[in-house]
């Protein structure tokens, strides 16, 4: 019994020691790994979103370089981040979204890329240079990109609707479809849509603006079928909703799955919307950085880039790959009415640092 008490004290001391030790360590600037072109230093462990790359394509890479390539999945940036940050995750390549990249860089959790090992980076379109989160592309290369907008079932809503966020937020426009509207269950995207509709930036750090957006979402909440992120496109095609807030690639794929794709429309409203970019990066303690570089370079090739987009139907940042894209995909991407407000109306989501929790809190309060 006395032994037990002593053990307990020891356990508490150990815990304290560990906790204290963890706050002392400062990660130093990760220098770029010393890797040559096509160098392999072990197997590839990819940490990616689900269904973002064809298993067969990954297997091709593995065979070509004579290694094994595994992929594990995460379903959100925020689930991936702590795992990478905790260290020793074992992953060589990760695919963070734009705002998460800026966080990872600031936190020194991704390492610098060795540009000599990634010559195919020249294939990246100039639209994707000078990105706010990694201006000189020192740490990441773009992987796929897309937009967030509204999908509409024109057989119910008709073809003559305003290409505006008002289609969701304004009862005078869509009151007839109450209970058949859906918004994303994502604070930044949904509050962002409201902010854009009200004419503000979706990265605002003004509490007043955010509060107005919150009220707007709150008044809309009762008119919704649901807040949902993963099935937005399906609800649209299954009839659960007629107006849906969702991601470009998902929408495209889903429309093509139906017997009558021309009945559905996806567009980014004229007030503007989100352009999101997912990127490839290498964790600070990746066990096989050179293999990682090789993989990134390989995927940036023209053929590989096209194969990637043709499989997941998202936008490719790779100029050289455009020639190899599927007809259907090109049709969607080149649709002149896709961006109702033009390219300049798009914003990327940025992390707002200390202000960030206000978005999450506002979203919870808006839902009620």
């Amino acid at each position: 019994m006395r032994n037990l008490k002593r053990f307990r004290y020891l356990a508490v001391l150990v815990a304290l020691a560990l906790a204290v030790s963890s706050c002392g360590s400062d990660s130093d600037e990760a220098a770029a790994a010393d890797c040559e072109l096509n160098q392999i230093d072990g197997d590839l462990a990819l940490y990616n979103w689900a269904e973002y790359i064809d298993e067969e394509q990954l297997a091709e890479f593995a065979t070509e370089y004579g290694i094994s390539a595994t992929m594990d999945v995460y379903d959100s940036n925020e689930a991936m981040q702590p795992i990478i940050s905790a260290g020793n995750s074992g992953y060589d390549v990760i695919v963070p979204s734009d705002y998460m990249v800026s966080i990872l860089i600031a936190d020194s959790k991704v390492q610098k890329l060795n540009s000599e090992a990634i010559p195919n980076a020249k294939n990246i379109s100039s639209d994707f240079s000078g990105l706010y989160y990694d201006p000189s592309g020192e740490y990441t290369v773009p992987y796929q990109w897309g937009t967030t907008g509204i999908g509409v079932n024109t057989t119910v809503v008709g073809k003559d609707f305003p290409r505006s966020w008002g289609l969701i937020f304004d009862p005078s426009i869509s009151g007839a479809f109450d209970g058949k509207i859906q918004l994303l269950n994502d604070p930044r995207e949904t509050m962002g849509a409201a902010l854009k509709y009200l004419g503000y930036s979706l990265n605002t750090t003004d509490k007043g603006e955010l509060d107005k957006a919150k009220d707007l979402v709150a008044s809309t909440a009762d008119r919704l079928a649901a807040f949902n992120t993963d099935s937005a496109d399906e609800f649209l095609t299954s009839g659960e909703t007629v107006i849906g807030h969702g991601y470009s690639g998902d929408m495209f794929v889903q429309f093509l799955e139906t017997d009558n794709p021309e009945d559905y429309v996806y567009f980014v409203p004229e007030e503007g919307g989100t352009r999101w970019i997912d990127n490839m990066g290498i964790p600070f303690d990746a066990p096989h950085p050179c293999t990682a570089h090789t993989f990134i370079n390989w995927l940036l090739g023209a053929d590989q880039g096209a194969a990637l987009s043709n499989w997941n139907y998202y936008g490719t940042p790779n100029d050289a790959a455009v020639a190899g894209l599927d007809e259907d995909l090109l049709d969607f991407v080149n649709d002149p009415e896709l961006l109702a407000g033009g390219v300049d109306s798009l914003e990327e989501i940025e992390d707002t640092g200390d202000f960030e929790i206000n978005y999450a809190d506002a979203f919870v309060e808006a839902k009620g």
Partner: protein
Amino acid sequence: MSTSVEPRGWAKAALHLNGWVVYMFFYAPIVLLVIYSFSNSRNVGTWGGFTFDWYRDFFDSSNARGALSNSVKIAIFSTIISVALGTMAALSLERFTFRGKKVFDALLYLPIIIPDVTMAVMMLLFFGEFFDVLDTLFGLGLRKGFWSISISHIAFNISFVSVVVRARLAGMNTDLEEAAIDLYASRWKAFRYVTFPQIVPGIAGGALLAMTLSLDDVVITQFVAGPGWTTLPVYVFGLIRKGVTPLINAVSVTMLVISMLLVVLSLVAQRVRRSG
């Protein structure tokens, strides 16, 4: 030994009806699940003609197969350990008194009441630190994987098993046990031949529960898994993010069939043991 008290009259009818309703309730989504796993349509809920494609996709996918085998291995291993530890814990709490018993009792409830995500975060932090310490002290470069997941699963399963076994023990009549103690040479024999057979339903219930919890766990596993150790629910969770397709149904039905096979096997094994 124990005679059953048959309910009579309307009570009997009501009980039977309740039983059927419960089973229908349980199996309604399962039936749907199975049906749509053969549907040739990307949408779950729309019938698109019969097909085995989703099963083919599943078996072709090395990711999916790997996830499945990982889940089964971890579930079996963690169930065995947690049943052993949990049953011992339950016995100690229900049949003995000792110093620190109240603390132990309360401690056992913590894994049940802790929210999943909190446990996920804390296990992540723990293993991060733990492996760091091991690395600095012994130079052991351990990775998260089978062991970190199993350890986490056992941590919460011990409690669930002990709750079920305790419910069983609490209602038991101790006369038989005391008689056995007088008759048998050792406490161990008394346990083995008297107590144990009586608590087997509790242990079985606990084991079933532990197995289910391990096979279903998403958040905790997600945070403590390592490369190559994605489990099935984590895999399904990730798939769902991309879109709900009948592939998920195919995966589930496969799991179902495997579980049923395991159960049948264990029943057969019991039969064999009894007659052998």
